[in-house]
């Protein structure tokens, strides 16, 4: 295999699941390329990725705030009502001196999801205005470290499990925050699980090359 220089390696892609080497082919807008060995998604082409990404990250942040300020679920037992929000849940942990679990939950269900989408927002804004090539790179590296620790989807499933556990004990009213969380998780799955960071790296290269020319 012969290449001109290291930059030419951008024309290749290695599958993240089975590590097979593929050559990058140009795609039509909105199409995606999959691995021939294992069928995993390799890359996609979206000509309006910046606008889409910006819109998605704004949406996600909006839902995230709603999810944190309103009760997830309200229960009613013999006239006693009680509700819980995400900050209340974290506070209860620290009050009962479960510091380790408290910190784990604080990071996993609050700081990391918030951080991820704030970074996405800043990234797409920078790309939109074509500024700060260096900081984009740094943010992307930071994002790749944060990404595996974002577990909001698992948290949502846990809420469902605990609701089912409660059915026998109390009357359950699902709160605003629950629906916001459902929508947030959908956006999170769309952005975090389907948008590969390499697409943003390629975008950065393309955007800033144009400017130099």
């Amino acid at each position, binding site marked *: 295999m012969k290449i001109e220089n*290291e930059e030419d390696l951008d024309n290749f892609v290695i599958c993240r699941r089975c590590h097979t080497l593929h050559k990058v082919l140009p795609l039509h807008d909105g199409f995606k390329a999959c691995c021939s060995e294992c069928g995993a998604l390799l890359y996609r082409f979206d000509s309006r990725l910046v606008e889409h990404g910006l819109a998605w990250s704004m949406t996600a942040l909006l839902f995230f705030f709603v999810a944190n300020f309103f009760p997830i679920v309200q229960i009613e037992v013999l006239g006693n009502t009680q509700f819980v929000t995400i900050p209340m849940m974290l506070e209860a942990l620290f009050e009962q001196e479960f510091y380790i679990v408290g910190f784990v*939950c604080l990071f996993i269900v609050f700081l990391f999801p918030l951080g991820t989408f704030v970074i996405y927002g800043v990234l797409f804004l920078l790309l939109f205005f074509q500024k700060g090539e260096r900081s984009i790179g740094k943010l992307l590296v930071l994002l790749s470290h944060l990404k595996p*620790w974002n577990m909001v989807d698992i948290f949502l499933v846990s809420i469902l499990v605990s609701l089912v556990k409660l059915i026998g004990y109390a009357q359950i009213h699902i709160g605003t925050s629950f629906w916001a969380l459902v929508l947030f998780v959908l956006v999170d799955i769309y952005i975090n699980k389907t948008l590969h960071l390499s697409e943003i790296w390629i975008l950065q290269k393309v955007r800033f090359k144009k400017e130099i020319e």
Partner: protein
Amino acid sequence: MIEIEPHHLIRCPHCDAVNINKTKKNRCRRCHSDIYPYSNFNTEKSWAFLVTAMIAYIPANLYPILITNKFGVIEENTIMGGVISLWEHGSYPIALIIFFASMVIPIMKFLILIYLMISVKYPIKKETKTNRYKLYFFTELIGPWSMIDVFVVVLLMALIHLSSIDIFAGTAATAFAISVVFTLFAAHAFDEQLIAGKNPKGEI
């Protein structure tokens, strides 16, 4: 003009860029982060995390995870006890979810990681590398799901503070959270490059 063999190419885990494996210290040409910074330790780091996780998993199963105070009667439930009582109450799907999340997934993850780390040292010819990559990808995918039990306990604890019934988390919640976090660390510290048989000394 550079002449390279396809198997000398490696993927940067942070930005997915294809890099040439320069065998000693690799630095990604696109995002400038070190590729496989732990390679000097071989699998030791991953082993250390994994053993910690396995040790934490023992108290997680022995101590109660959920303490219920119902009209002054205190009831303590371990993880397995909770699954059994859910099964007896007829909520089979929930019992299965909890069983999978807190028993099957952690144990499976321990076994897969142990297998991967041993197979890196003593390769078995029959097993293809592609399969092992897929196995690693699979453990990364299912790993976080064992957090379900911790989240459920935390939610119940925060939600239920009534005069008639009160729920507390037990010691096992902490142990279990530690165990899950350390298995995740172990999986992250595992050097995927080792699967390809490229050892850190650069002998390919």
